[in-house]
């Protein structure tokens, strides 16, 4: 590292976060402590450093106190680091001469009851932050072009909606479907609640719009087999009946849907007298056998249990809808739904639920500890509200099973390097604030690939994912944070390729240079995770803003 000639002037801003931090730490003591740290020339406490007022104080500090490094001790960098960085930039300081210290999550929250220890820990963290800040180097953001084309994986209702929405915005793209026909699960459905839209008609109409749209290239009987690249520049191989097609695209939407769980071995399931709701849809579509007079539906079959703890969201509404349709076709049929909680959330579902009761569908609350027994011509159930066993005659038993993740979800997850959750559904970037994005830039998701969704939700998410995906397309370029891996010591690199094998983002490659085989970092693809730098036994690779020297300085400060 070159000898620094500049006079380092560090400003430390201590956030009270209302009382979230100041209620549990001694901020006055922390401020006095910070003032005495090396290179610190300015210390200020703010009620909320992230508020407009707090931001203005940072800018004022940079201008009036000639600060050339800024340290904010507040909450997690996940929420406010971008804000603080860009505020430094607005005040004329390179945004990467900023360091953030988390004294909320790591001090005030976890040491609520140990104020003194919490304050001492905050002092350690601030001292470490300041030590690192002194060694920070300015960095410049990286810009890369975006190929203005999209790929949608999955041709169900969510995927078709996304593809059409992008096409309506003038963006070209491909739509890949593993089956022969577009439509996904809708192809197996009868009518869609609550307005009883004909599934066939909807599929037909959407398929016509998609295939007739010149902006959309449809690949059916096709699978994505290879994905290389990064946001803006993906190279994708699609295996079709007529060979492998290679396409270049800028963004990807995952809309691979879910698959109904088959309840083998549960409740005497046989696909004939004991069927799933999906099979019930087929029976209804074919016109129900008039001999069916007694139908019993059982909810939560294979869900909300140890193996599959989640509630699959849409099975209750499916059961209620099908119960009403049965009553419509065979008006003297008795239909009973055995349930744990009727998950008829929202306006439309609750209305359908009420309607079904008025139309004679019966509801019986069962206890999962004492589940119903399916016998040859009846279902025996302990009625949890009446407190006794009941025998319900049954010509047909319908099991409401959850949607589970697609068989190929794992494969797609690996190809795209995006995570799935513990149930095999794709994991979004943030549960609340980024429901349609992945943590990886350039890849988005919608529909039941994320979590079971009904038709309204799948359409809404399809539109929403298109909106999110269109942002890089409309910009035509992406700007990436420069906290990435760099080949800091080219001579040290022996081109062994160990780092290339370990990089989870495909951001490294070996190139032949005049000096021999050397690693090359694809900067836009790098996420700065640090695996390569940690692995390289030659210490050739280094992460910007997390250099060995900076981290050693932090450790030394801690041990001081």
């Amino acid at each position, binding site marked *: 590292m070159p000898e620094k000639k500049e006079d380092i002037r560090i400003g430390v801003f201590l956030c009270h976060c*209302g*009382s*979230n931090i100041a*209620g549990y730490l001694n901020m006055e003591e922390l401020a006095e402590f910070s003032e005495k740290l090396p290179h610190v020339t300015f210390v200020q406490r703010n*009620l*909320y450093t992230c*508020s*407009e*007022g707090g*931001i*203005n104080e940072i800018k004022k500090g940079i201008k009036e106190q000639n600060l050339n490094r800024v340290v904010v001790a507040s909450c997690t960098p996940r929420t406010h680091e971008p*804000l603080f960085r860009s505020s430094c930039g607005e005040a004329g300081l390179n945004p990467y001469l900023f360091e953030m210290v988390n004294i909320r999550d790591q001090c005030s929250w976890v040491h609520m009851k140990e104020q003194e220890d919490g304050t001492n820990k905050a002092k350690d963290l601030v001292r470490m932050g300041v030590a690192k800040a002194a060694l920070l180097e300015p960095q410049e953001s990286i810009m890369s072009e975006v190929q203005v084309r999209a790929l949608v994986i999955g041709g169900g209702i969510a995927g078709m909606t996304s593809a059409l*929405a992008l096409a*309506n*915005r*003038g963006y070209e793209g491909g739509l890949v479907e593993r089956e022969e026909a577009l439509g996904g699960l809708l192809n197996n459905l009868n009518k*869609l609640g609550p*307005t009883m*839209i004909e599934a066939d008609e909807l599929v037909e109409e959407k398929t016509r719009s998609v295939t007739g749209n010149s902006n959309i290239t449809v690949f059916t009987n096709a699978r994505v087999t290879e994905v290389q690249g990064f946001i803006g520049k993906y190279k994708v191989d699609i295996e079709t009946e007529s060979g492998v097609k290679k396409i270049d695209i800028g963004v990807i939407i995952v809309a691979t849907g879910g698959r109904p769980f088959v309840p083998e071995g549960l409740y005497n399931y046989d696909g004939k007298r004991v069927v799933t709701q999906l099979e019930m849809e087929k029976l209804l579509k074919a016109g129900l056998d008039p001999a069916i007079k007694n139908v019993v539906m059982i909810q939560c079959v294979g869900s*909300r249990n140890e193996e599959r*703890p*989640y509630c699959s969201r849409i099975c209750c509404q499916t059961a209620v809808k099908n119960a009403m349709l049965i009553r419509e076709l065979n008006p003297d049929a008795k239909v009973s739904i055995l349930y744990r*909680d*009727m*998950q*008829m*959330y*929202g*306006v*439309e*579902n*609750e*209305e359908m639920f009420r309607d079904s009761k008025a139309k004679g569908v019966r509801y019986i*609350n069962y*206890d999962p500890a004492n589940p119903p027994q399916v016998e040859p011509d009846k279902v025996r159930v302990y009625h*949890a*509200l*009446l*407190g006794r066993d009941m025998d319900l005659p049954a010509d047909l038993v319908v099991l409401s099973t959850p949607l589970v993740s697609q068989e190929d979800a794992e494969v797609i997850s690996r190809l795209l390097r995006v995570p799935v*959750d513990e149930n095999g559904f794709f994991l979004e970037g943030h*549960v*609340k*604030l980024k*429901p*349609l994005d992945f943590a990886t830039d350039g890849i988005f998701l919608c529909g039941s690939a*994320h*979590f079971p969704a009904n*038709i*309204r*939700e799948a*359409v*809404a*998410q399809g*539109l*929403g*994912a*298109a*909106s*999110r995906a*269109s942002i890089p397309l409309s910009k035509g370029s992406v700007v990436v944070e420069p906290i990435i891996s760099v080949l800091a010591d080219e001579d040290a690199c022996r081109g062994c390729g160990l780092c290339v094998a370990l990089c989870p983002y495909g951001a490294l490659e070996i190139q032949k240079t005049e000096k021999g085989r050397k690693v090359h970092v694809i900067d836009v693809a790098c996420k700065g995770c640090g695996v390569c730098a940690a692995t390289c036994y030659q210490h050739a690779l280094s992460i910007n803003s997390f250099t060995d020297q900076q981290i050693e300085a932090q450790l030394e400060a801690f041990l001081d």
Partner: protein
Amino acid sequence: MLDVGRHPNIELLAYSEVEKVEGEAGNFKVTIRRKGRYVEEDKCTGCGACAEKCPTVVSDAFNEGLGERRAIYSYFAQGIPSTHTIDADHCRQLNGKKCGICAKTCQAEAINFDQEDRILELDVAGIIIAAGYDVFDPSVIPEYRYREIANVVTAIEFERLLSASGPTGGHMDRPSDRAVEAEIAGLEKKAKKSQKAISKLEEKFNEPSAQFYKKYQAGEYKDDEDRKKWADKYTAHLAVTEPLEELKKQAEGFTVAKRLAFIQCVGSRDFRFYPFCSGYCCMHSIKEAIISHEHEPETTSSIFGMDIRAVGKGFEEYKIRGGNNSNITYVRGRVAEITEGPDNNPVVIYEDTRERKVKRQEFDMVVLATACAPIKGIAELAKTLGVELDKYNFIKTSSLSPVDSTTPGIFVCGCAESPMDVPESVAQASSAAERAAEIAFQMDLEKEKAVA
């Protein structure tokens, strides 16, 4: 939120309302009223010095009336914009009294008592309605005695009590206890004053008041006017200090609320009010119970509901975790009535439908999970925009066009469309943005055609 305030493509028009909309998709003319704040937005730095000095105390709507603010205020600490606003209904200066303290305090010279509403006209291609919802006011449900029993609060009020930046700094102090503490503070102020008055007299006559008063009552100093005044002042002092001591003794026993009841479907799934399910309230109650337990590990919570609807990703798991780790009991049944027991403890009367028994249970505090109601003024807004409402007064849409209103070019997202939780609102917001962007794209196409 800050991103919105800082984005170069977003013009933020806070404290403003839409007055008139004309035209059609691709070409709307919108009239907007920017309400006068009496503070110049470009001068105010949001420092808050004015609010510190303002003498007028007003109940704070952001804290659901549980806290106080001044007549000049910022809506909440991290609010964007951070510009302060003068509440014209309460400001002394604007109501003809002499004041103007804020104007004298403000170093940025941002206060402008003459500021008027401004009218702004905009040309836009499309409109997104994201007007949100109102929290149902449960005081119309007689059997739950909201506002009659101090320790029955709504979920959003409870949220403010849990918040570190809320009126209790995140401690679950009960409203009844807070009322007593407020009374103590008031009486202490009075006692200080009356103490001062009698201290003067004690000095003058060189005798403690109690000793004097005994003699006075025994008939001494019959025609002594000065001593009569002393006696009057002393009895007035006692009239303050005696109840004060009582209250202080009472307050010694106060602890934070540890036994909590959450009552689901308050105003929802109820034919008298809103027949629909508000969707998010079950999870909201579970979250509040878990956070309460984090604040105070001895906390136990009972959640009373007909069905506990935990239908989102990870929700059922969260519900079970709450039961296992946060002392939450889920009780299946609708609460029939809430009464008040000793120590201001609310008593919940309900049928446990699984045990088929009517039960009474005493709690420290009861939280009502209130319905998601259409916003007040939605009918006028819908009329202004020319869009249809559904029968509950949410903006009408359909399953296959979930964010399109009945008027082309006008879209809707979030709870203005129907009750939904945060991730759904965020997803739907993107959907509405997509539909609006399609209109904007059409405009580009037409422009290109016109040029060609």
